[in-house]
């Protein structure tokens, strides 16, 4: 296909594609298209793998990662381990346009976002709380720890280092509703 302009995105997230396409057709830039498209997915909580209320960590908190890149200027803005801010792609764009840095992370990224006018709010939902509760009830399985004590394949933490390291079998518990 050579039918420019073009929007393409991973997974069957139709509303995100439509939002990006609308941005382009309305005279927006390619950066606007990517930002609008990803932001749509964040609000829609696409597949539970984007935005607030999904993929709770070991403590039950949802944290967000996002990045945007300008293919002309090679400018990039990115945020990782962002807490309490729903519009992660918007913060990533703010990193690109309002700092000379590339990547901000964690609590400091959240403070930056608040200073730039993004609203801080709890990213937990009943759904993410339920996922977290079920995980705790299931002895914290699946679990990404290794070579720690107590045995992470059967027990919850807190964990400490295990004296003798065992051979890791390399099995990963990624599924279609838990991915980057």
């Amino acid at each position, binding site marked *: 296909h050579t039918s420019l302009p073009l929007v393409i995105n*991973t997974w069957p997230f139709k509303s995100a594609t439509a939002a990006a396409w609308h941005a382009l057709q309305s005279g927006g830039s390619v950066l606007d298209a990517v930002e609008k*498209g990803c932001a749509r997915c964040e609000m829609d909580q696409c597949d539970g793998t984007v935005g607030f209320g999904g993929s709770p960590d*070991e403590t039950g908190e949802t944290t967000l990662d*996002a*990045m*945007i890149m*300008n293919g002309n200027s090679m400018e990039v803005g990115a945020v990782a*381990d962002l807490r309490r801010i729903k519009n992660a792609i918007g913060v990533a764009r703010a990193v690109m346009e309002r700092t000379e840095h590339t990547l901000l992370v964690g609590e400091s990224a959240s403070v930056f976002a608040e200073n730039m006018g993004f609203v801080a709010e709890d990213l937990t939902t009943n759904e993410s709380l339920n996922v977290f509760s079920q995980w705790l009830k299931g002895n914290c399985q699946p679990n990404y720890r290794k070579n720690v004590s107590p045995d992470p394949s059967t027990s919850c933490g807190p964990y400490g280092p295990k004296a003798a390291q065992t051979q890791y079998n390399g099995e990963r518990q*990624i599924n279609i509703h838990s991915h980057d």
Partner: protein
Amino acid sequence: TIGMIAMDKDGHMAAGTSTNGLSHKVPGRVGDSPIIGAGAYADSSAGAAAATGDGDIMMRFLPSYLAVELMRNGADPSAACKSAISRIKRHYSDFFGAIICANTTGHYGAACNKVPTLTEFHYMVADSESDTAVLKSVPC
């Protein structure tokens, strides 16, 4: 996770990602999505790519950067995507992942690694021909 590429009629490109990562991750864990060249990469002189899957594995291979560089050297988008997946597969044969690629002329493609939970990868495309979002898929 969503990974997205946008290209205007003049060939200007942008790419982006947004994700809440893996369920039950260790607090502080960050995946490939915000890592430039891993989750996505764009260079209007060569192409753009966006990856999705197990970021702990994929970020070690910078698959989006690799795919763009392959397109810069003449590979078509599907071949570039397949090569980026193959590079990871050499070391992690059962990794969960997929990638989309687009070159400067607006040609696009996708590839994925076949595992029990991923035998076909779905992605969305909108262009001036369709004027709307169209579901596409590629067998892994």
